[in-house]
């Protein structure tokens, strides 16, 4: 039986009918067509579906859709400024070769963003722990870590 939920999605209040059996990922991709959030495994083991809910990085593929009620959900589409200016993290991933095939990138940026919101000056270990749930097959993580470090630097200024 469909139910109506209300929540904040990328800084906009949304009201939507959902099926209780959906995950948040399904709602984002199939209903809102916010397809930047990827399904890499569907069982919380790769991090490609990471979104930020009330400030915390979560796997949207395991997030029961009804739990989004009243929450503040940010996806990769809500990271850049409304005029399209890239977030420092996005810019740093472009500038430092932090992106290759790009499939993990949305999730990586969301995990990194959740970290930087809690800790503006993270250690390398903080960064690595925050993205350890995001599998990347292309980069060996080196330039991703460098991208996050540079973004943190730029955001301090």
């Amino acid at each position, binding site marked *: 039986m469909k139910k109506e939920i209300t929540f904040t999605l990328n800084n906009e209040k949304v009201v939507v009918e959902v099926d209780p059996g959906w995950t948040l990922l399904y709602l984002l991709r199939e209903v809102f067509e916010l397809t930047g959030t*990827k399904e890499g495994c569907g069982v919380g083991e790769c991090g490609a579906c990471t979104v930020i809910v009330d400030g915390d990085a979560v796997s949207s593929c395991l997030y029961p859709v009804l739990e989004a009620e009243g929450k503040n959900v940010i996806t990769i589409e809500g990271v850049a400024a409304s005029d399209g200016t890239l977030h420092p993290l996005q810019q740093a991933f472009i500038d430092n070769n932090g*992106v290759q095939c790009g499939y993990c990138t949305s999730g990586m940026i969301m995990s990194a963003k959740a970290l930087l919101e809690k800790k503006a000056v993270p250690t390398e270990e903080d960064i690595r722990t925050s*993205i350890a749930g995001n599998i990347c097959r292309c980069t060996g993580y*080196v330039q991703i870590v460098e991208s996050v470090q540079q973004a943190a630097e730029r955001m301090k200024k």
Partner: protein
Amino acid sequence: MDNLLHVGKNIPRTAETDKVTGRAVYMDEYKRPGMLHGKILYSRYAHARIKSINTEKAKNLPGVRAVITGYDIPDVRVGFLGDQTVLKRDLVRQFRDEVAAVAAITPEIAEEALKLIEVEYEPLPAIFDPLEAMKPDAPLVHETDARGRPLRSNILPLPWKFNAGDVEKARQESAYTATDSVNTPWINQCCMGTSGCVAEFDSNNNLMFCSQTNVIFGAKQRIQTYLLNIGLKGKKIRVINPTVGGSFGTKLDTDIYEFICIQLALKTRKPVRIRFTREEEFMALPPRQTARFTIEQGCDKNGLLTFRKVEAILDNGAYTSWGATTPSVMMLPISSMYRVPNVSFQATCVYTNNIYSQAMRGYGNPQAAFAVETSMDHLAETAGIDAAEFRMINRNHPGDVTPMGLKITTCPLEQCITAVKEKIKWDEKRGKRNGRGVGMASLIHVAGGARVYLSDGTGIRIKVNESGEVDVLSGSTDQGQGSPTVIAQIVAEATGFKPEDVNIVFGDTALGLWDAGTHASRHTFVAGNAAVRAGEKVKQQILELAVQYIPKMVKRSLKQQKKKNPDFVEPELDYTLIDSPEKLDLRNRMIFPKAAPDHPHFKTEVGKILTSGLHVGTGESKAVVAEVFWDPPTEMLNAEMKGNYSCTYAFGAAGVEVEVDRQTGEVKILKLVSAHDVGRAINPSLVKGQIYGAAYIGVGYGLTERVQLVDGKVVNPNFRDYKILTANDAIPVEAVIIEDPDPAGPYGAKGIGEPGLVPTAPAIANAVYDAIGVRIKDLPITPEKVLAALKAKEG
């Protein structure tokens, strides 16, 4: 070659900004009106007879549009040896055999329908060990070959045999020899974006096929053949790429699911998408195969290699894809890594009821390099020579022609080994046996294309629009390595425009000229060479326009100034400075006389020439466009498996420092140095990205990764149990770029896509030996193997 404006710079990947905003369209997002979703039913047995299939219930499920089995479609063979069909009739030979397929209005309904398909099997004896499968009385995986002729053995009719010199004689004359048996595991490529495709026929039965293939023209040809064989003659096929979420070898061959998708689209008259789950990615895609090597090497009393003899047995699995041709690349290190005059190599591919195999980054090289480099350390120790010195003594040199006929052009292997030695502090740390150790391995790989098809060419078409954008149409593909950025840099350098002016169109057979595919580390080299040549032609055309129009523009401007200001004195200008294209240059969008680069009147922004020079009226208007198809001057391997199949070769070395926990057997990497001969780094940041990424996969190959099969079934088909390293498994890795521009490369560049993976695992194994005196010859080097070996050693 100095004074380059764009090549050699860390140009950001601005062309791929859609990947950081979530807007990039991968297969997951590629949608067509009325599109259906396809799902595949796989075998429940490794080997069985299909007694019956009942699809009635599945067909009656609301939302299902088609259910097909092998009995519903023409029995047409596909694949490299034609040893399988698209959907299997009568027999299944592996767990991933495709038995039926469904198209439905949602993926969920299609999945539901699969459960309603009833298949009755009669299990048959299966064989999983290639050594058992080679025995004369072993049950046959295939009773007949593609043409129906009876087969007597599970050994594939692919005789990989290579001989150079006289190995027997060299063995007898050697002062030292060493023999080792080494094993390498199945490895899943683990693209983060799972496999998928969309097939769509138009009303004339022409096919639009959206595929992740990195060989779009190869895929087109295979599909064309298939359509012809099922009775669709003369149909047009267009293959396009979406954004591709990684390839690593999986997109080299056309996979069975792609043919199934085409069949479902044909049957339903609708666009159909198939998209793999992660579990399918592990159990229904061909991995890198397992290999067993026996390697024997010898050297004289001075440490010079005398011979190398290698025998390999490859578990082919039930069918044949590009896994069976990996010996052509195993040949590289086996015949040509280090100077070795006498070589013999024999590889045997064996059918089993395991999952079949195909390409992965590095092709056969990482497997064979593990054998060669393990043996190198062993032989060095036997001969009492330091392992780094031993490699140095035997290193390749520029100008060498190897036993395989490879012509070594540039070869900074010496610098690579030296860099590794220094950075890993080799002399200080080697030989302590105190739980810490250092190890090394080298590599040779194709870096100037690889002639595995009759053509190894790439065509590039460049057109410059009147507004000054540079459109580059290429038949190549990009799977994430950053080709759009690198080609934009090369085109900007060659044409005289800026990288941001360049707009790259990849991955469309209708727009691009033929290309042999983005594989074998060949794209930057081959497409780059075509791009340089096409870019230079474009530049020439623009300079010809400039000769015509700059004088006109200058004279008009002077006239206007005179009109405005009667006192204006027209300067005396030497128009011979710009009276031929050879006297002009175009760089960074500015046209100028070579003899007076800052000439105040002749220096002209290129856009002005384009607007005034292209659209100039009846009969005179022009377009700036050039195309070049470049096929490297190389040879295919001949019947003796000899031939210079690449224009140039890349060398490199990896050094690793490890700490081994003697109580738990855990290996911790303290430092990894990966030094690579890249010719010239077109974009150093992107080159490092290739090295880091490949080295990381190499560490996984060395320590953690393996597809586990139990009686032919993949038992770890997920990221929890297939252990890709995470960001927390921090490997302190240093990429060292050695530049020694190759005369044949675009601005001197060599290919660098695969090399980083090759020496990593053997360097780790050699470091483990240095740390604890135990040699692990079976990848991955798990704590269990280390501890067991230590216990065996301590008795």
